[in-house]
Each structure stands twice: as structure tokens, then as C-alpha cells.
């Protein structure tokens, strides 16, 4: 590899200045020179001083102004910096700017952007060039790659990549000390674990998916949300009693924060498939009575906030500080966001950025301090807006989910009524006699799973294992 200017400088700086002030002075010098091509070196100096957010504008400016980054050392700086501040700060950059770099983190960001746009081939291309296993972005990149294969219905590749992802993530987890990063790694690993059953589910291999889902430990941060997927999987296996059993887990107080109206939809659907019309209808009606009024107020509320990201940011923060809104949907939505891994990642980065404010005080060079302060303010503002934007997106998503759930619920009810009519028109007795509930004979076992019946109490070790034993009333 050709040694670049930056790498030489870095070596110099490592040789002659190991103190903070030395790095700061070096950075000042580069800044004063006005040579933007040397900004990566300056950023490197600042990274040494753990002034990551202050450095972001310099590297962005570098990326915008340079034609092509063809320097491993610069890539390394980028990797280092993005690992600290998160990918969101750079996702906002245009693709053509990002494409100037070959840094694994940048490629990961580009792949994410393409993935979101549904350009799976392009996304894979960005990830085509190998990323070293030790690279911090590697587990995340593997997760992304697996996901791309999964949605592309390439189950074998997906499974292979996800398995690799789990192994790599485990390695990283063993070495990682930082609490926030450790959490991200574990989440990433767990998503890779469930990536396998997800692929199987996509291929309608429900029996296989059913067993694969069990590989995810209940202690996982993402287990609650995956439980819902398991419920769907059971639904497609026509094991409606198990679906209902999994869904009832969400009633446990510990899952109060979960915002997923679709759980109710799935519940109503399951009852419908069991021909338990009244239960299905009751679920629909309960859903409407629970959310109909609140939803109007909720929608009105989030619409009133427009795109004021600062407000959104405060909303979650206030909620975390214990300020409860008089709207059940909003409260649950905010509780859900505040536990959302993506949000947490953004928020922890933001907090880390704020730590730099203190560091700034130790810089004697007033001019440099002024420049860095401006940089930090700009980066943190962006970070806050990114958080706000994310929150807004989530809240809007929830709003859409509720409307969608209402629609689904109505269709379920119409379907139930339609079936009821069929019964009435047909030669089926109207009497509801012999409706056997809670019949253990309805259980199906697999060797990987213990079976529990839900008796109204929640026990941590039983969560997700409840199984209803309702008898289908289908004629």
C-alpha cells in the first residue's frame, strides 16, 4: 500500500507530539494553512483528542471538495470517526460524495441507502469488496447483506451470511468494552439470528422458521418484537392457539412499552380462523373503543408539530424524564421509541458529542476553539435534528399503523359477519352449544419447545410460551 501524506504526518505526530495540546496545535496549524486536502490529518488529530463531533464538518468538507479518496489512511480516519459518531451524520450526504470513499463504513452507509431505496443489487455491490472481520462495521454490514439476500428470497445466501454475521458479532462482543457499542453489537447479532427464520418465513418454510426463531434467547433486546413475528409464523402454521398464546405475552406489564397495533389485528384474525366469531368481533370492538378517540387526538397532535425536530427530540426526552401525556397512543409510542435501538444509538452519540463541550474549554487557542465550537454546534444540531426526524418518522409510522390496523380490523369484522351469514344461510345450527374452551387436546408439540397454558399470571421464564387451547368452532 502506498504511504500517503496523511500517514506520514500521522507517524510524525505520533513521534513528536503525544500530548493533547500537541494534537490541537497540529490541527490548528493545518487549519491555518487553509489546505483542505489536509483536513483528514486534522480530523485525525482531533480524533486523538476524542473531539469527534467537532471533527465531522472538516471531514465532510474534505469529502465534498476532494475528487476521490484514494488513501487507506483517510479511510481509516473515516471508519474511526463514523464508528464513534454513528452513520446517520454521514447518511445525509449525497451518494456521489460518499462514493468518493472506499472506506468500509462509507460503503456500508451507501449500501444502507441503496437498500432503503430497494436497490438490492447496488447495495450488494457496495458490500462486494471485502471488509475485514475486525472492522467495527463488519457485523453490521453482514446483517445488511443477509437482509438483502433475505428480501431477495435468496435463502441459502442469506442463511450463510447471517450465520457468519453471528460469529463475527460474537467476536466483536468479546472484545468490546463500550457499553453502548456492546448493546449495538448484541442487537446486530440477534437480528442476524432471527434473519435466518425470517428468510425461511419469506420462503414460506414456516415449520423451519418456527424452530429457528427459538434460537433467539428471551433475554435478547429484540425478543419482544420478534415474538410477534413468531406469532405470525404460528398463524401461518394454522396453530392459532399458539399465536394467541404468544400475543397474550404482550399483556405482561413488562411489555407495556411495545407499540404494535398489529398484535390486536393478528389476535382478531386468529379468533376468526378458529371461527370464534364473537371473540373476534370483541377484539375488533375493543380495539376501536381503545384507540378510536385517542387516535384522532394523536394525529392532530403530531400534525401540529410539523417538522420542528427540536420539539420531537424534547418529546421523547420529556417522556424519559417522566412527563406523561394524556394520550395512551402517544405515551406508548414514545415509550417504544425511547427503547428503540436506533434511537438509542442516535441518542448515545448525541450525548457523547455533548461531552466534547467540556473538552473544548481546555483549548487555549481562542480562534481554534471558536472554529471547533462552531463545528461542534453544527454537528450536534444535526444530530438532534436527526433524532427529531427519526422520532417524527416513527410517530408518523405509528399513526399509519393504527389507521392500517383500523382498516384491517374492519375487514376482519366484515369477514366474520360474512361467515356468520354463511352459517345462517346454511344449514348450521344457531345454537352455541358444545363450545369447548381450553381443551388440552388442541395442543401440538415440537421437541424444541415447552408448552405452557396461560393462567392470567406472567412469569418471566414463561413469556412467549403460552398456548391457548381453544377449540375451533368451524363447521
Amino acid at each position: 500500500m502506498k504511504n500517503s501524506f496523511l500517514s506520514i504526518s500521522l507517524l510524525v505526530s505520533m513521534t513528536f507530539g503525544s500530548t493533547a495540546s500537541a494534537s490541537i496545535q497540529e490541527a490548528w496549524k493545518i487549519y491555518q494553512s487553509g489546505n483542505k486536502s489536509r483536513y483528514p490529518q486534522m480530523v485525525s488529530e482531533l480524533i486523538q483528542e476524542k473531539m469527534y463531533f467537532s471533527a465531522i464538518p472538516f471531514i465532510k468538507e474534505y469529502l465534498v471538495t476532494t475528487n476521490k479518496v484514494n488513501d487507506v489512511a483517510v479511510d481509516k480516519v473515516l471508519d474511526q470517526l463514523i464508528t464513534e459518531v454513528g452513520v446517520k451524520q454521514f447518511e445525509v450526504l449525497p451518494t456521489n460524495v460518499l462514493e468518493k470513499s472506499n472506506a468500509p463504513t462509507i460503503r456500508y452507509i451507501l449500501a444502507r441507502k441503496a437498500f432503503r431505496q430497494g436497490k438490492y443489487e447496488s447495495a450488494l455491490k457496495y458490500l462486494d469488496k471485502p471488509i475485514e472481520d475486525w472492522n467495527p462495521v463488519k457485523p453490521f454490514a453482514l446483517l445488511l447483506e443477509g437482509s438483502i439476500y433475505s428480501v431477495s428470497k435468496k435463502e441459502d445466501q442469506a442463511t450463510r451470511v447471517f450465520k457468519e454475521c453471528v460469529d463475527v458479532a460474537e467476536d466483536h462482543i468479546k472484545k468490546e468494552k463500550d457499553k453502548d457499542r456492546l448493546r449495538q453489537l448484541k442487537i446486530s447479532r440477534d437480528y442476524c439470528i432471527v434473519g435466518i427464520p425470517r428468510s425461511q418465513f419469506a420462503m414460506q418454510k414456516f415449520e423451519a422458521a418456527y424452530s429457528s426463531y427459538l434460537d433467539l434467547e428471551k433475554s435478547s433486546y429484540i425478543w419482544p418484537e420478534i415474538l410477534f413475528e413468531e406469532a405470525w409464523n404460528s398463524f401461518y402454521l394454522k396453530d392459532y392457539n399458539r399465536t394467541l398464546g404468544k400475543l397474550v405475552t404482550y399483556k405482561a406489564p413488562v411489555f407495556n412499552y411495545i407499540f404494535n397495533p398489529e398484535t390486536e389485528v393478528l389476535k382478531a384474525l386468529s379468533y376468526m380462523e378458529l371461527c370464534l366469531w364473537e371473540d373476534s368481533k370483541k377484539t375488533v370492538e375493543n380495539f376501536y373503543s381503545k384507540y378510536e378517540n385517542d387516535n384522532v387526538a394523536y394525529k392532530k397532535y403530531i400534525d401540529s408539530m410539523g417538522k420542528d425536530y427540536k420539539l420531537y427530540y424534547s418529546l421523547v426526552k420529556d417522556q424519559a424524564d417522566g412527563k406523561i401525556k394524556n394520550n395512551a397512543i402517544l405515551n406508548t409510542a414514545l415509550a417504544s421509541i425511547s427503547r428503540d435501538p436506533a434511537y438509542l444509538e442516535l441518542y448515545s452519540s448525541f450525548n457523547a458529542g455533548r461531552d466534547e463541550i467540556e473538552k473544548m474549554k481546555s483549548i487555549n487557542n481562542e480562534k481554534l476553539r471558536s472554529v471547533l465550537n462552531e463545528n461542534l454546534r453544527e454537528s450536534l444540531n444535526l444530530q438532534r435534528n436527526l433524532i427529531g426526524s427519526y422520532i417524527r418518522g416513527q410517530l408518523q409510522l405509528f399513526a399509519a399503523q393504527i389507521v392500517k390496523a383500523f382498516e384491517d380490523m374492519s375487514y376482519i369484522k366484515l369477514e366474520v359477519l360474512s361467515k356468520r351469514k354463511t352459517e345462517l344461510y346454511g344449514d348450521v345450527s344457531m345454537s352455541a352449544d358444545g363450545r369447548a374452551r381450553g381443551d388440552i387436546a388442541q395442543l401440538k408439540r415440537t421437541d424444541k419447545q415447552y408448552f405452557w397454558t396461560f393462567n392470567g399470571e406472567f412469569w418471566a421464564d414463561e413469556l412467549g410460551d403460552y398456548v391457548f387451547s381453544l377449540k375451533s368452532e368451524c363447521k
Partner: protein
Amino acid sequence: MKRKLILILCFGFLTSVVSVKFAHADVEQRRTELLKVLDEELREVTRLNKQIGAQRPDLMLRMAQILLEKGRLLKDLENQKYLEIPAAEREKSNKDEVFKESRRYFDQAQKTVLILLKKFPRFEDRSDAYYILAYNAKEVKQEDQSKKYFQKALDESRSGTVIADKSRIALAEIYFNKGSFDKSMNLYEAALRTKRDKWWTKDAFNLAWSYFKMGKYDKAINTMTESYELSKNNKYIDMSKSIERDLAFFYTEAGKSDEAIAFYKKNGKSVSEVMLKVGRYLKTQGKFAAAEKTLSDGFQYKQNEKEEADFNIELISLYEKFGRDQKHLEACRALAAQFSKGNLNPDQIEILKYNAEKMSALIQQQLVAKTYDHQGDVRDKKAEAANEYFMINALLTPAKSQMDYFHSGETFFAIGKFDKAIPFYAESIKRSQKNADKKTESLASNALMVSLGKGVKKTTAEEYLIPAYESFLSTNPKGEKSSVVYQRLFSAHMDKKNVAAASSVLVNYKNAFPAENETQEKMLAQIMDNYKDAGDKAALASWVKRIEAGEFKVSPDYAKKVKTLVLGMQFEKVEQASTKGDKKGALRGYLQIYKSPESDPEAKKTAAYNIAVLFYETGDSKQMVAWADRSASMMTPPELVKFEKDYILFSTDLFQRRLFNESANLSEKVFDKICSTDSKNKRVFFKNANVIYLAEKQFEKSKNLMTKAPKCGIGNEIILPAYLDHLNELAASSKWSSFNDIIKSLEVSKEMWPQLIYPSSLLANELESIGRGEDARKVRSKMMTYYENAKKQKMDIPLEGLDAISLIRLSLLEEQVKKLNSVRLAFPESEYNKNLKGKFIQLDRISTEAVSIAEMGSGIGIVKAYKLLVAADESVYNEIINFTPDGKSPEYVASFKKGMSGLAKPLDKQAQEFRATAIKKIEKDNILSPENAWFLVKNEYSFIPEFYSENGAALMDKAGGK
């Protein structure tokens, strides 16, 4: 989750299930439930629309479906209600008004669909929308419009979709019903390529018919058999019955009878049934020879009598057509036998009737026209055949059977077989009478008379003469010759000793000729003599009863003669025995009369009375009382009055024989019976009964008797003493509760008050003796009221009443005397004077009250009042004389005593005068009082002796018991 709306299913059900399933009993419940579900659906679609916030074509379509469905259900309901309206009212009713609600929903559905099609012309499921429009049009009977929309629905639908097939089937049905089988065939063919639903069998059935009509027999048979096979699967509508019915036609028309038999055999169906169907079908097609063959062949496979009848019914018209007379008769004969077993249905009966009537008439016509006169055997056979047909007719129509018998008679008459004709005429007459057919009866009667005059056999004449007379009289009950015919008929019956029939003739004669008394009497005499000779008393009695009831107008002499005859017969022997002193024989005779069911009540009561008398005479009291009671029950009150003295004798005899209860009961019984008469002996019976009841302590019976006495005209002069006796007996028996009740009941009448004083005193004394002083006081207070009122009203008060009142007053007087004596004279002087003055005042009061009591007139009161008065005077006198003041000087004492002596002397004098007056009154007024001795006895002892019997006296009660 957008769900595909299920349009087709709903309408599939609407078209067929609604009509089929709703025939069930739970139709109401289902409809109500369905309406609820539809309302829920409407609400849900509306809510969904609101949630989505925009109109969406699929939802509009769903809305239209629901509206249409609701409209149809409501229309069913309205239709049901409309049909429940009585026809007359229904005609007047406004149909638009009746079907208003469903119309509203149809309109809404229509409107919704039209808006949908206008707003969303490219809506992918617009075929569903047209389907709704089509059904809507069908609902309002706009067939062309409906057809147009179904076609549109078909055009707009994607091939292979449910809606496409359903539209095809709907169109096919329209064409099928119109008879456009080429079109219906093509549409059904396309729609039925896949067996989409359970209605496939039903639609395939129509397709098969379409093939059949188009002459495609093989396809028709194949489709039918496929539908038949699928009908065995419960996932499909079972069309097997219809297919089994129609497939035979197909096979026959296709010339595949053998295959038909194979098919039905294979499916376990009756071949005979199929052959019958085929035969019928061939007949409808005018293929009679083939039909006869098929049916005759099929007849071999018949499985039961019903099928046999079915075959014969089909065959007789063919036999008639081909002139197979014998077979025709045999078939009719077999059918008649089935008819008798009740195996023919109304249509079959009509067919048999038609054939029998036609054939009998035809043959009779031939015989009357003497067509076969030269062929004796043929003629006779024909006559027998005609007769058989007539008998079948008679069997089928019993109400007109008299005509058939008459015609049978006429048939034999026509060929000169009178002995054969006569029984038919006679039967015709009988049936005419039963069916009230005067005309036929008259015809048959005349024919019978004529036939009897045609030199018939003697046995025939003997057998049918009486029927002939009867028939004649039946049709000519009051004719010119009828009187003579009645008498001949009567004689004919009497000759045959048929008295019952003769009696019947007499009755008819009497009705026809009521004025002919003499003839009636003669007939009666013959009948009565007959019974007399036979010793049939019951029959005689019955006729006597009828004569007495005026059923027959007979002369009084004859009537009396008859009655005497009967009674005489009854009592004749008994009286003879009685006269000869044979009491036992007489008793036995009366007893027989009494017990005989033939005896009339008159005879029975006479017998009962005579038995009682006979037992009285023989001293058998127990038997006597039983028969006296029985006879009294049977007699009318006036009759009993006639014999009342005998009953007094009976009751007296019973009393004397110490049969008190029997005596009293008999007296009361007679008393009750003659209650409403003016008999003077009523009071005797009353008193006798009451006295004995009281003596026997039967207070309730006595009370009941007294209660009813006023209604029987018994006066107070009898009743009141009876009550007082009753009260006394109650008191004597310590029945105080009943006693009190009687008093209360009598108290209502103020006239009774004087009489109640004494009994009340007994009650008061009793109350006092048991410690109920307050109650006693109240009774006494009431007694005083009775007394005061009686005095005021100047009513007579019984002496015991006066005694009782005086005793009350005396007890008060006694209290005053005690009070007088309780105050003692004592010094100082002022106190002495005060007490002395008080004593004089009190003495004055005592004197006034005592005199007043004495004046009441009570002996006890007079003597006791004087006794108290004398005692009071003497007591005061003695106290004054004997008082010596203490601590005073002798002079003072002497002067004081002297003064007091002068003051006291008038008291002593007055006491002596009162004593003398008392003695005078005792002697003059014969007063017997316990206090008399106080005045009259003067002895050396200070007490008054009383006397008691040493041996103990035996007191007798009223009844003579101890």
C-alpha cells in the same frame, strides 16, 4: 390487509338458499339474526369508510351488496306479512306501502352501484356491480333490464371468475324459462365446466333438459347421470328425485328402455315404477299401443298393491280405447277392491268412477235396445257385467248408490229376469231412504210393486211384500190408499208376531192419520192384548205411560181401563193377602211391588206407606221407622198431610219405645216435608222433635229446628218458649258458650228482652262463680237495660226475670245496709249528732229503695227488701237505745237516754209495721221465698231450720231419665 369482498357467495345464497332454507321453522329466528348481522355490516362499512377518509369502490360495492341483501330479507318478511292479510283485505291494501321498506333498500343499493360505476368507471370489479344491478332488476320483475345487466356483468367479468359463471347461470335460467334452450344450453355448458359449488347438480339438471330439448339425447342422459352421481355426495344439492323422475323420459325418448331398466336396477330403484313412468309418458305422447305394452310389461314387476292400482289406472283407459272389455272389467274390479282398502287417491277414484259409469251406461243401453236378444248367453253376460259396473259405482258413490241398484234392477227387468231385479229394487229403496232420495225411492217402489205382480216365485213375494208396503208408505205416507196399506202392513206384522214392527206402523199411522182414533185404539188394543197375554208387564207399563203422556188420542174410558189394568195387576194379590190377615204375605207383596223396576213411583210410595203401617201393626219399630221415613220421602206434601196423623202415631210409638232419636228425626222429617202446607199439626211435629232433642241434649239439632220454624209458619208463641227451654237446658248442661250465642241471637229482637232477663241472670251467676266478676257485672247491667226497656214499653216480664232484677237491686241495698251499720255512734256530742243525722238520712234512702224493690212484684224481692228494711230500722233503733256516753254525769246520761229514747221509738214502730206488712204479703200473695222463715219462724233457737230428705230424693228429668 385489504380483503377481497365475497360477492358471489352472498348472492348464491340469496338466490337459492333463501328460498330453500327459509322454509324451515326457524326462518323467523334466522331472518332476525341475519338482519342484525346486516345492520352490523352496514355500520362497519360506514366506520371503515370513515377511518379511511375517502370513498373507495370496493367499499361502495360492499355497501351496495349489504343494502341489496337487506332489501331482499325485508321483502321476504313483508311478503310473509302480506300473505297473512285476509284475501279480501289484501286486495284493497296498497302494495307499495306494504313493500315500502324493502323498496327503500333496493333503491339505495341501486343508487350506490350507479354512483360507483359513474365515479369509478375503471373499477376492476365492476362486473360485481352489474351483477347487483341485474339482481335488483330481477327483484322488481324487470326481466329485460335484468337480462341486460347479467349480460353486462358477464361481459365485464374476467373469464373463469365466479361472477362470470354466476352471470352465465343467471342468464341461462332466464333463457331456460323462456324456452330458448339453445342459449341456455351454451351458457350452462360454459358455466358448468368446473364444479364450483353445490348448486352444480341443480344447474346441470337444467343443462340436461336443455340438451334434451335440443334433441341431444346422449348428452342429456350423460349430464343427468353425472348430476345423479354427484347428488349422492352431500357436498352437492340432492337432485336425485327429480333425475330419477325425468331420466326415464330421456331414455324412452332416446329409445333406450333397456338402459333405463339397467340404470334403475343399478341404483336400486323400482323397475315397475320406472315402467309406469315411461308408460305414462308414452300416453302423453299419444303412443298408446307402446304405452299399453310398456304398462302391461311393467305390471309384471309390480311390487305392491299401490303400484298395481297405478298400473290399472293407466291401463283401463287403454283397454277402453282398444275395446278389451273383459280386461277393462277385471282392471275395474281390481281397482274397486283397492278402493275398498282405501288405497286409491282422489284422482284414481275419479278415473275409476268415470270408467265404471261409462261402461255400465253403455251396456245397459245395449240391453235396453235389445241388441243381444238373439244371443241369450252374451246378453246375460252383458247384464252381469253391467251389474258389476253398477255395483262398483255404488261402492264408489254410496250417497247415490240407490240409483245404481235401481239401474241394476232395471237392467235385469229389461231382460225379463224379475226375480233377480226385485232384490235390487228393494235395496234401492233402502238406500233411497238412507240417502233421502224420494224420487228414486218412488221409482224403485213402483218398480218393485210391478215386479211382484209379474208372477215371481212365492219365496220372493213373501220376502219382499212387506218391503213393498213399507216403500209405498214411505213415498206415499198420507195418500188415498195409504190408510188401508197401513192397516194391511200392521196386520202383516201382527201375523208374523212382529209386535215391534206393528207398533212402528201404529206410530206412523197415528202421525199420518191423527184423527183416526178408533183405528188407533184398535191397533193399541191388539198390541196391549198381545203383551197382556204374554204377561209382559213392562211393555204394558210402557204403553200406559205413552197413553198417559198423550201420545195417542184415546177415549178416557179406554185410558182408565188401561191404568186400572196395570195397577190392578200390581196390587191385586197383595190386597187379597192383607184382607185375609196375612200380614206376612201382604208385606212380601208390597215389598215386591216396591222393589220391582216396573213399578211406577206412585205404586212404590203406596207400597212403602203400607209396609210402614204393617210393621207398626206388627210392632217392628225399627222396620216401621225405616219405611215411614222412606214413604214420607216419596210422598208429596199434600199427600203427607193426608196421612200425618198416622205419622204422629208412628213417632209417638217410637217415643214410647224409647227410640227417642228415631222419633224426633221422623217428626222433624215430616215437619220439613209439610213445612209449606197449612197443616195444624206442624206445631205438634215441631214441639215433639224439639222436646226430644233437648231431652237428649242434641242442642244443634234443636237449634236448627228452631231456626227453620219461622219459615214454616210456626209463631213466636211456640218458638220463644222453645228457645227458653233451649236456654235452660244449655244452662243446665253448662253450655255457656252456646248459651251466650243464643242470647245474642235473641237479643236482636227487643220483644225478647223481658224473656232474656232470667236466663241472663243464670249466665251472670255462672260468670261470677268462675271469677269473671267484671263480665258478670256487664251481663247484669244488660239485664237492667232489658228490664228498664220492658217497663217503659209496658211489656210483661216473667216472674223469674223480676226475681233476677230484684236480686240485683237487693244486693245493692244490702251494701247500703252494711254501710249504715258500719258507722258507729260515739261521743263527743257533736260527732254523735253528725253520725246520727247521717244514719237517719241513709235509713231514709234504704227505705225508699226497699219499697221500690218490693213494688216490682217479685216475691223474693218483696220478702228480702222488707227483711233488709226491718233489719236496718231495728239496728239503728237498738244502737241509739243502747248507747251510753262515757265520762258523763249520771244526770246527763239519764237526760240523754231519755231524749234518745223518744227519738228512737218511731224507728221501732216502723220496723214492726214493716214486719207485719211483710208477713201479710207472704200470706196474701203466696210468696215462697227462702227469706220467709225470717219473718215467720219464731223459735227458741237463733237459727232457721231447713229440711232435707233422709233417703235422698230421685229427681226425674223431662224424658224420664235420672
